[in-house]
């Protein structure tokens, strides 16, 4: 398949992730949608690496996976902390940082 197909799939996954981030209220699900967006980026990177014929894109994708893992760790730690303090697990309720 031409590389363009993979890129289109990547774009669609990315936009589905965006829709999820904008619509869901549970922070865990928002993190999941964030994972979707990261994975879409990974797919694009690997597609381009195939297009160029070197492994730069794949290495980049590996590092992105590392970053995603770290981000998930910290994010879920936050959610656990929220739950421990009996705060509502709802991004619309957690709005004290306003102007």
């Amino acid at each position, binding site marked *: 398949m031409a590389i363009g197909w993979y890129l289109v799939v990547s774009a669609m996954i990315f936009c*589905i*992730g965006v829709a999820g981030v904008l619509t869901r209220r549970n922070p865990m699900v928002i993190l999941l949608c964030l994972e979707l967006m990261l994975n879409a980026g990974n797919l694009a990177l690997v597609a381009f690496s195939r297009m160029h014929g070197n492994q730069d894109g794949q290495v980049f994708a590996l590092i992105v996976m590392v970053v995603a893992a770290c981000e998930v760790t910290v994010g879920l730690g936050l959610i656990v902390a929220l739950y421990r303090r009996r705060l509502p697990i709802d991004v619309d309720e957690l709005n004290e940082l306003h102007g």
Partner: protein
Amino acid sequence: MSAVLFFIAAIGAIAGAIGVVVLRNPFYSVLALVSHLISLAALFLLLRAEFVAAGQVVVYAGAVMVLYVFVVAYVGGGEDLPTGGGLRILGPVFALALAVELCIALLGTGLKGISQKGAPYVAGFGSPEAIGKELLTKFLFPFEVASLLLLVAAIGAVVLARRRKGLEGDDEFLKTVHTPRSLFTGTMAEGVGVRTAPRGGED
């Protein structure tokens, strides 16, 4: 043959993505994401990125998603929270607009590189040997930094989620979080006696 596989994997990925977004129960969303990740691994294999595909399954679907499952089990599913406000409609609209834009950018601008199948295949492309060579020569610095990042994240997670003294009540936590207000803020008016200092402890 590869085209058929591509379509199956692509549809699987998109279905998983939609499932993540649409399913109400967070646990089901996690499962949908796992299936999405597996499909994505298949797509990586089709692109001859063997190591990345393996890494995706082992690390991403294997470790990260397991972490997610644990947390969802601990925190619970939560109620079904309806989406509020204008973003209920505008959210998907923005996403759709972005999708259309990206597709136009990809397909409509006559990019030549992506209309082929890619560079000619070299044996050992995408193999662990090749990746490893890149990681230790060309991308040594990002490799080291990534390891540092992992360390930081691990420490952060421990700090965030640790228990202090078992499950405390609200007031103990409130006491530790609320710093005591000073009795005297140091303005001239207070010094002269015109205005009294704010009472401490009030929020």
